[in-house]
């Protein structure tokens, strides 16, 4: 009898769960799916109202995308996002480790000061960056973008990595030191492997920030260092918007982040949830 009651209840709960998951997926994925279906349509079809949901797909938008300056912009984006992420990690991870192990009185003040650059909106820094870059000749260079993104990502790395280092017991490091390991070896071979999930999660966030940036790239680049998001906007011509290319470009711009996120998904989940149930 109990099975007879619990069976329908269980089934009903499963159905509710499935519906909830389905609705959530539709809400989350609909902008992406809409963009994706647009990228396989011709401009005429895109502008039709009501929009046709069944159509003969074309790869023309993707093909034409690679004939212009978009590939260069894509490479620029990859370079600026990758190098700035790497640089922010190289500088920020040791800084975070040092701060986590520092028990001095100024620790909180220093930590707070590091966060200051993340407190103001980017627009506040754009014009000073523009004028300074013009003066030193870094306008329209990938190096210039890397430095800007690094300066914004560095505080994030330091703040995100500190709690991870604090979870590593100092006794482990002390044991290694007693065994004759140098500080460098302790850091690289004992501490770092233990915070890998944190590094992965932080790297994703840094990469996302740099990859998705539009504003700095708009102001600080022209044609040589133009990034993919700005290149997509360049399909909004005076004589008409190239909707198909915008959609194809937008879909392609999402790809690296998607691939990167999937590649480090295992670390990402544990990294972002670390500390969630700790006191």
């Amino acid at each position, binding site marked *: 009898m109990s099975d007879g009651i619990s069976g329908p209840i269980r089934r009903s709960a499963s159905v509710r769960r499935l519906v909830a998951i389905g609705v959530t997926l539709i809400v989350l994925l609909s902008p992406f799916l809409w963009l994706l279906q647009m990228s396989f349509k011709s*401009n*005429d079809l895109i*502008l039709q*109202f009501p929009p046709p949901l069944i159509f003969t797909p074309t790869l023309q938008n993707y093909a034409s995308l690679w004939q212009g300056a978009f590939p260069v912009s894509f490479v620029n984006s990859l370079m600026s996002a990758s190098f700035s992420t790497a640089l922010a990690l190289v500088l920020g991870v040791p800084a975070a480790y040092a701060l986590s192990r520092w028990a001095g009185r100024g620790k909180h003040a220093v930590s707070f000061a590091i966060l200051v650059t993340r407190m103001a909106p980017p627009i506040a820094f754009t*014009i000073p960056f*523009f*004028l300074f870059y*013009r003066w030193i000749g870094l*306008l329209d260079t990938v190096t210039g973008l890397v430095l800007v993104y690094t300066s914004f990502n560095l505080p994030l790395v330091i703040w995100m990595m500190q709690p991870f280092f604090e979870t590593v017991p100092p006794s482990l490091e002390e044991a290694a030191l007693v065994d004759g390991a140098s500080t460098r070896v302790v850091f690289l071979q004992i501490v770092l492997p233990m915070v890998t999930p944190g590094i992965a999660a932080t790297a994703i966030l840094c990469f996302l920030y740099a990859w998705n940036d539009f504003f700095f790239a*708009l*102001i600080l680049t*022209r*044609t040589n260092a133009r990034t993919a998001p*700005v290149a997509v*906007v*360049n*399909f*909004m*011509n*005076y*004589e*008409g*918007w190239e909707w198909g290319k915008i959609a194809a470009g937008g879909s392609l711009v999402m790809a690296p982040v998607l691939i990167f996120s999937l590649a480090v998904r295992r670390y990402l989940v544990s990294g972002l949830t670390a500390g969630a149930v700790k006191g």
Partner: protein
Amino acid sequence: MTKKNSSDKSAGLSRRTLLRAGAATIGAAAFPMPVIAQTKPFAGVTLRGASFQHRFFTLLQSYIPEFEAQTGMKVDLQLSAFPVYNQQANLELSSGGSAFDFVNVTFILAARWVAAGLLANLDEFTGDPNLTPAEWKPKDFVEGAQVPYRDAKGATYGYSWEGGAMVMGLSRMDLMEKKGLKIPKTFAELQEVCAAINGTDGVTGLVSFQLHHWCLPPYIQGFGGNIFRNPPTDIMPALNSPEAVQAVEFYANLLKNYAPKGVLTYTEDQARQALLTGRSNIFIHSSAWITPILMSGDSKVKDTSRVVRMPAGPVRDFPAANSQGLGIPKNAKNKKAAWEFIKWALSPEISMRLVKEHGHSSVCRRSVIESEEYRKLNTVNGQDLGALYLEVLGLPAKGENYMAYRTVKEFPIVGDVLNKAFEQVATGQLPAQAAMNAAQEQAIANMRRAGTAL
């Protein structure tokens, strides 16, 4: 000995002369560029220019190698999307940069840039016969298209490369004829035709797009109003004048009753598409957007279309006109080279080549537009599109400069307010009078905040 010496000497001279001549010949053959380069005053100069992407520049780029060969300079032309270019150029010019030697002077920003002294006075170039030959003829540019590039004293800061003349396209004359309707010549007739056609054969009466501060002012002026009280001298907004309110009501009703659903969010190409496919009967916009109904391969209404003057208002007949220009930043490093480029790009020869070889008809040189070749190429189904284009483009310079509202630097501020107010009326959120009263107050407040003394 003397003889021998003499002979030796003569032989030696001869050898030297031969050697020198040979070396010179070999040298000239091996390294001809420096010799040629010396004849080109701009050899070695890299000219940096920027504009938004437009067909004109795409076409011009194919001719640029010829210019580079003639002058010896290298042209680095950066083309970006319209909003991207305006953002970057605004920042570059207003911060006194020298990254560009020539720039596109975007119509909506022209007055601001000219008034702020960000551009070089081109009269200094056209006034010097060493820099500008008489046959270049600055006065050949259609006067109405040149208005935005002049300061209060009449000095010129840009020369127009593209003109936009507001005309009316009718895609379904077949439907109109069946119903016995004539081409509307007044606002009242426009409404009648829209009402009669709307819904027939799935066609809407008219279509428009979201840039209301371009589409709406001809109606405001047609009813006798204006955006400012008396621009450019008196720039007090006049958005809640009875004429402006009447115009807003009229145009909002047109869109509410006879345009496709969602027209308030339409972009220009969506509206053009509706016209090209015959889904909407009337579209009033710049000639470059309307004439494709007769000239584009995509047009499905070539045989049933007409392109004419937009209807006149009960008080005035003021179709809008605009142009885009080329200018030289005040701090440009290569001003003379930039002027050489502008002279070449906007020369009668290049303008005519653009018309003949590519059908690019929205040039601004009167002599080209009035030429027989231009007329032949731009007469379609018996409609002389060139004459219509020239007529409308030239109107602001005849008598009252009714486009002056758009040449004052405060227009973008007031234009934004007007856009929002119109949307409130068209969506039924507010009655026209209330929306325009609020818009008037908002415009004044915004202008004061921006530092305008009223």
